[in-house]
């Protein structure tokens, strides 16, 4: 009995008229939690009832507290007939379960009905009393904090980053149950909403358990998605990065015992002191800082798959006491002493062979998620990210109907989770699917010489019974000093780590071995430090590191593609799709590359590629933020070449195009202020000499061995072969060559040139911060826009379709600029496009972004207070963590050689995996960087530039916040929020970013994760689909804001709309829409207020010793 939930219904207002005769309503409220229901009295004849109920008390398990929402139903009492429901409110109790988050939920909630939308508001008070429970067998994970934010949350310090956590739960979709035929749409919608609430609660709890087991106390970068698989079920899955976070507060020491943070709920941690039981094979007990570091022989010698490993020594009893949990398969089990290792996961990659993993999963056991060195984070404390290899991605096409039929699928059996059975097995099929994809990603990363994947994300696209699973991330090397074992995988590259690269360019340096490159790329010496090699272009899924040296501003780059596909069913369809995928990826990549060059930039950040399937077409959309990294060579131009040189007409035409391209490049350079610093130029001879040599070597180097087949571009078909050769022959040319040989190519070039730059005063990007803009002012407007296009002509060509799709995206952007014109100068940040093909001939694009104003005058400078707005306090504190952690690690390089052997095995894995199941023909390997091979692009050798200026840029970390008395600020804030709680509605800001410019986040109140269904049978009366969706989106915003306000917050950060599924039937005058949103509820205070409070250290002082 570990918890008591108390709820009080205070009042209602603006209720709808339920009794036509009196124009009034006799309202009462049902409060339900689990299976217990309470009722208030009927408040007769009022649209603004005052119930002022007693406290309804629910005595429940904390497990239920996590899973179940509090369900409040407002009804109209009717003496003679059934009571009419007015609407419902679901309240997620989870935020009350953290020890330091909100203590009470209190406020006005919109009363929501799936048919009528918002119908009035209700004032509710909710409290939870948690009893301490020392039951180590417990199923709950109360107290684990969840953050959607994909960086270390402000005000926290990551003591340990444990690594990847994932989970999924499956259930039958109520919409497809037999009972749905006889119940009302409202009942069906409510069943669905409630089920999804329950499922995401359960999912969160399970992830929390994994985190606790790892010894963490928080999940950062929590990403939860729904897969509506129709007949085959409803999947809720989530990934995240487990961390041990410590709260930073001005007064308290950062050296408090690491257990203090999770202590309140560290129920499964009997050994709270430094001396933990040690696990793994035979680790010596590591009880204090300088931990003896052990060369683990585990890597190649395949450890027993089920060895109870506890990678995170702190905070955890040995796992086999957790009887109720599936034992984790351990590998590597590189345990370090307390405080000794962040990112322990990294130590443990590469160690298990594919066979073992297969074995593990097929024997019905959960694979240990921690085997994947994946991080859902997209930005890191400085010093954390050493090198970036490039984007790795994997896709796989699956047939959903297969999972009903074990005989046809792979050998594993599957069953749908019975909702009520706690002990139900994991939905294995899907687990295995993801498992496979993740393995592939891991091996791609390895091929790039990287031991980790950062900025990792997963998503699915479902059309009928075909499902495309995709995962992508950025292969990277994280600081080896902080994860000594991890770097051992990279044989022969250790020398690079000996002298730390400057942070402004270090991440650009190649992580792979230049003599044995996984793909041909043009390498040059870093234009910054001149010591390491860098590639000519860099694609990543992460945010631009805050200390990266760039020239000019960034810009939003998007590649769009449509491909027609024949209608087909089942297997044939899946095959057709998987055959198309590689071509799409290739073309998207080419487009991105061209567009990047056209803007004379050399790196992409925040790259996300979506492929959506429809019945008769595939849509591909790649979005990224381009930027000029000064460490990388300047991009060459784009040169147009004709195939038929004799034709004069043609030549004239080509010259025209060439001129237009050159003009565009010149214009873009000016527009984005890309003027790479030319502070000192070496004798080009010296420098180029080495380059040429190197390039030749690279070009001459053979295509990776067959054993790397898994990494090769799948469609290694004639066409691409031809292309690569062809392009390689141009290898020494100065510029990127585009061939104009047919109408397709002409189309391509035209589409290249049709991208309009944003109008004056506007900038756009899809990353957290806009590269090149630092001085945000506080105005901010988050928005969601959805557009659906109906293709009237069924016989469209690919080109026509492409044009339509491109125009759709471009027009959306134009619309945004126009609508937000009053905010200039302003930047559209975090532009997040998502495409879908809801039905045949429909294309749906949904965008969520935020417009933020900035101060125009100072944009040229990179002001010193940059860290303040970017990450406020985390700057210095986060730095402490690697430092602190590495303090006890001095001599680690010894084991380097022992771990090399893991590599070949895992690359053989994917080929093996490929044969396992259905999606085997699916394109499974498309590492972006490998694609580069197919395109010849050489470095413009004439211009070797480098810059020292940026290198010396003083990275002055603001110490502003450390000593500011937060407590005062908070109490002040609370006072002010209380004052407007009364009559008018308090303002709640929303942003997809993790920060609010000009403010400081003082408290995270918990995750907001909401799912709503809205349906109408009077579509025309509600203003058609647009009117219907407009009010639904507004209602969703309103409900998010209300929940945040009730938690005492005044903003939502890292807000995102994960799903927006719209199904319409205008003939029947019906429409249904599902929306899933999430974000972090926070309390912020304005920096100006802070300044008033802050005693000694002010912004002004940081300003003065700013950039030099």
């Amino acid at each position, binding site marked *: 009995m570990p918890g008591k939930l108390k709820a009080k219904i205070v009042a209602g207002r603006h209720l709808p008229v339920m009794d036509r005769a009196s124009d009034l309503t006799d309202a009462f409220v049902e409060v339900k939690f689990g299976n217990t229901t309470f009722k208030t009295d009927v408040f007769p004849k009022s649209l603004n009832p005052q119930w002022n109920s007693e406290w309804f008390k629910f005595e429940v398990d904390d497990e239920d507290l996590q899973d179940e929402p509090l369900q409040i139903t407002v009804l109209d009492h009717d003496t003679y007939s059934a009571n009419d429901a007015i609407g419902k409110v679901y309240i997620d109790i989870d935020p009350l379960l953290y020890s330091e988050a909100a203590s009470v939920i209190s406020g006005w909630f919109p009363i929501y009905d799936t048919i009528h939308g918002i119908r009035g508001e209700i004032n509710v008070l909710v409290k939870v009393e948690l009893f301490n429970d020392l039951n180590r067998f417990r199923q709950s994970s109360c107290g684990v904090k969840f953050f959607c934010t994909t960086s270390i949350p402000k005000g926290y310090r990551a003591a340990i980053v444990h690594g990847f956590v994932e989970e999924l739960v499956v259930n039958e979709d109520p919409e497809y149950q037999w009972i749905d035929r006889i119940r009302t749409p409202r009942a069906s919608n409510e069943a669905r909403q409630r089920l999804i609430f329950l499922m995401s609660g359960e999912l969160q709890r399970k992830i929390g358990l994994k985190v606790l087991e790892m010894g963490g106390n928080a999940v950062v970068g929590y990403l939860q998605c729904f897969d509506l698989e129709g007949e085959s079920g409803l999947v809720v899955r989530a990934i995240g990065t487990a961390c041990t976070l410590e709260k930073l507060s001005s007064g308290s020491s950062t050296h408090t015992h690491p257990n203090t943070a999770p202590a309140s709920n560290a129920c499964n941690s009997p050994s709270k002191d430094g001396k933990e039981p040690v696990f793994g094979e035979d680790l010596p007990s590591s009880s204090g800082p300088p931990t003896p570091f052990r060369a683990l022989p585990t890597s190649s010698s395949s450890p027993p798959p089920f060895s109870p490993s506890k990678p995170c020594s702190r905070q955890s009893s040995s796992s086999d006491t957790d009887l109720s949990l599936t034992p984790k398969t351990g590998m590597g089990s590189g345990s370090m002493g307390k405080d000794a290792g962040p990112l322990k996961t990294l130590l443990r990659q590469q160690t298990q062979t594919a066979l073992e993993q297969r074995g593990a999963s097929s024997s019905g056991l959960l694979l240990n998620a921690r085997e994947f060195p994946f991080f859902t984070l997209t930005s890191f404390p400085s010093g954390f990210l050493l090198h970036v290899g490039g984007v790795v991605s994997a896709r796989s096409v699956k047939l959903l109907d297969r999972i009903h039929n074990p005989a046809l699928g792979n050998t594993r059996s599957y069953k749908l989770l019975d909702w009520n059975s706690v002990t139900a097995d994991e939905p294995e099929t899907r687990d295995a699917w993801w498992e496979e994809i993740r393995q592939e990603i891991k091996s791609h990363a390895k091929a790039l010489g990287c031991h980790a994947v950062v900025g990792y994300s997963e998503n699915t696209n479902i059309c009928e019974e075909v499902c495309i699973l995709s995962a992508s991330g950025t292969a990277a090397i994280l600081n080896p000093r902080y994860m000594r074992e991890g770097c051992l995988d990279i044989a022969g590259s250790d020398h690079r780590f000996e002298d730390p690269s400057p942070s402004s360019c270090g991440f650009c340096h190649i992580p792979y071995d230049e003599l044995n490159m996984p793909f041909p790329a043009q390498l040059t010496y870093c234009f910054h430090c001149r010591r390491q090699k860098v590639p000519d272009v860099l694609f990543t899924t992460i945010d631009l590191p805050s200390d990266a040296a760039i020239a000019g501003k960034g810009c939003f780059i998007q590649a769009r593609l449509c491909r027609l596909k024949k209608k087909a069913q089942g297997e044939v369809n899946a095959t057709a799709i998987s055959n198309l995928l590689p071509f799409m990826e290739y073309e998207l990549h080419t487009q991105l590359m061209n567009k990047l060059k056209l803007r004379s930039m050399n790196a992409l950040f925040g790259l996300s590629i979506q492929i959506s399937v429809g019945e008769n077409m595939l849509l591909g959309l790649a979005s990224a933020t381009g930027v000029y990294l000064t460490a990388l060579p300047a991009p060459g131009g784009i040169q147009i070449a004709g195939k038929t040189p004799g034709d004069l007409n043609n030549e004239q035409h080509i010259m025209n195009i060439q001129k237009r391209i050159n003009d565009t490049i010149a214009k873009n350079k000016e527009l984005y202020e890309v003027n790479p610093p030319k502070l000192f130029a070496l004798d080009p001879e010296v420098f180029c000499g080495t380059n040429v040599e190197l390039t030749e070597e690279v070009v001459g180097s053979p295509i990776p061995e067959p054993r790397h087949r898994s990494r090769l571009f799948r469609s290694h078909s004639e066409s691409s072969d031809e292309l690569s050769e062809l392009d390689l022959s141009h290898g020494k040319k100065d510029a990127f060559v585009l061939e104009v040989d047919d109408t397709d190519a002409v189309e391509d070039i035209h589409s290249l040139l049709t991208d309009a730059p944003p*109008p004056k005063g506007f900038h756009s990007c899809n990353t957290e911060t806009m590269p090149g803009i630092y001085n945000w002012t506080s105005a901010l407007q988050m928005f969601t826009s*959805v557009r659906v296009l109906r293709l009237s002509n069924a016989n469209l060509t690919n080109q026509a379709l492409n044009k339509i799709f491109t125009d759709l995206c471009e027009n959306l952007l134009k*619309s945004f600029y126009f609508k937000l014109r009053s905010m200039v100068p302003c930047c559209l940040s975090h532009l997040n496009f998502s495409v879908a093909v809801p039905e045949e001939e429909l294309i749906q694009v949904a965008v969520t972004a935020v417009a933020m104003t900035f101060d125009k005058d100072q944009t040229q400078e990179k002001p010193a207070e940059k860290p303040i707005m970017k990450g406020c306090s985390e700057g210095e504190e986060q730095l402490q963590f690697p430092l602190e952690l590495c303090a006890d690690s001095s001599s680690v390089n010894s084991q380097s050689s022992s771990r090399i052997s893991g590599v070949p095995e895992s690359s053989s894995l994917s080929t093996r995996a490929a044969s396992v199941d259905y999606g085997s023909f699916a394109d499974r390997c498309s590492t972006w960087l490998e694609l580069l091979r197919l395109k010849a692009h050489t470095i413009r050798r004439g211009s070797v530039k480098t810059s020292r200026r940026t290198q010396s840029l003083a990275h002055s970390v603001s110490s502003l916040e450390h000593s500011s008395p937060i407590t005062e600020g908070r109490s002040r804030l609370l006072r002010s929020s209380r004052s407007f709680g009364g009559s008018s509605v308090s303002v709640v800001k929303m942003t997809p970013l993790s920060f609010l410019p000009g403010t400081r986040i003082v408290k995270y109140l918990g995750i907001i994760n909401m799912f709503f269904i809205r349906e109408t049978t009077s579509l025309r009366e509600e203003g058609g689909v647009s009117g219907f969706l407009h009010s639904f989106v507004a209602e969703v915003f309103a409900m998010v804001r209300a929940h945040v306000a009730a938690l005492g917050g005044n903003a939502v950060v890292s807000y995102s709309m994960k799903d927006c599924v719209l199904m319409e039937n205008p003939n029947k005058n019906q429409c249904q829409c599902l929306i899933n949103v999430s974000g972090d509820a926070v309390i912020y205070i304005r920096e100006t207020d802070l300044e008033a409070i802050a005693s000694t250290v002010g912004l002004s002082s940081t300003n003065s010793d700013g950039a030099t």
Partner: protein
Amino acid sequence: MAVELDVFVGNTIIMSEEVYQLWLDGYTVNDAVKVRMDGGALDEFEANADVVQSDTMDQYRTFQMCERLLHSPTKLANQLLFQIPPHRQATLIERYYAFDDGFVREVLGKKLSKGTKKDLDDISAKTGVMLKSCRRQFDNFKRVFKVVEELKGPLVENIRQHFLLSDKLARDYAAIVFFANNRFETGKRKLQYLTFQDLAFCAGQLINNWTVGAVDNMVEDMDVDLDKEFLQELKELKVLITDKDLLDQHKSLVCTALRGKTKAFNEMEANFKNLSRGLVNIATKLTNTKDVRDFFIDLVEKFIEPCRSDRWTAADMKLYLTHYTNSAHILDTFKHQVVWDRYMGVIKSCIFKMYHD
């Protein structure tokens, strides 16, 4: 290929005052787009017709959704559906309740009923205000009328509190309510020269001086209905014209005071009895509802027109009325000084306001 759906929703409401005005004025989306494009919207930010169309649609939808809330503006402040900054709320409300003087002049004093609503298309044609806008304005009048009808306390204050309007607009609405309630005739040709503002001013005078609320401020309908007792007392003023001596005495007092001060003295002297009869007769007939309705037309016919035909200036008028009022106090047999002042105070300021071309 057609755009099936196109929405743009901001966390904070996104609106342009220009589009709001077009919406209020009753433009259809297409007309509004045309107006905006003619107004130069295309020059900004590389917009094209589609962009303007889409933006206009979004805003129109937003306004339509807000309209329900605007009907009871107090709800706008504590509703949760839209996040609207306070200054935007004020603009939304103030503009929604704003009206065209031309339109309101047409319905002033008419019964705010379905019948009148049916005539709106004629009014629309006559005034050039779009029918949709006419309907909104008419419904606003009706809504305000309905709400304040049953409230106690000062009319202007009630309107301001329930509809969150500015003081000026609240006063105008008070006038509209007052006219509608008392059904003053304002539509006659002779009254056409009067603007809404003239009449609103007069209504303000009447509300402040002649209603029940002017003496007792906690009565229902206190500001909407004229003080019956006062109207009864006005009958007593008849003595000023029925008593020959009193009339002559009054005339001589006024003429003495005016002599040499104005060019129109001869006309004033000649017309005194006529004018005085006119004003006093208006007063004595006000117990009759029918005559209350004709109050303004009587003022014009019985007083303003004769003066105008004699080419009195506004200054003449002022001088005359001041002395006319004050002289009554010196009449030793005239006992109704208080009623006289209450009556003449209003008449004076109304006539001052109404005496123009």
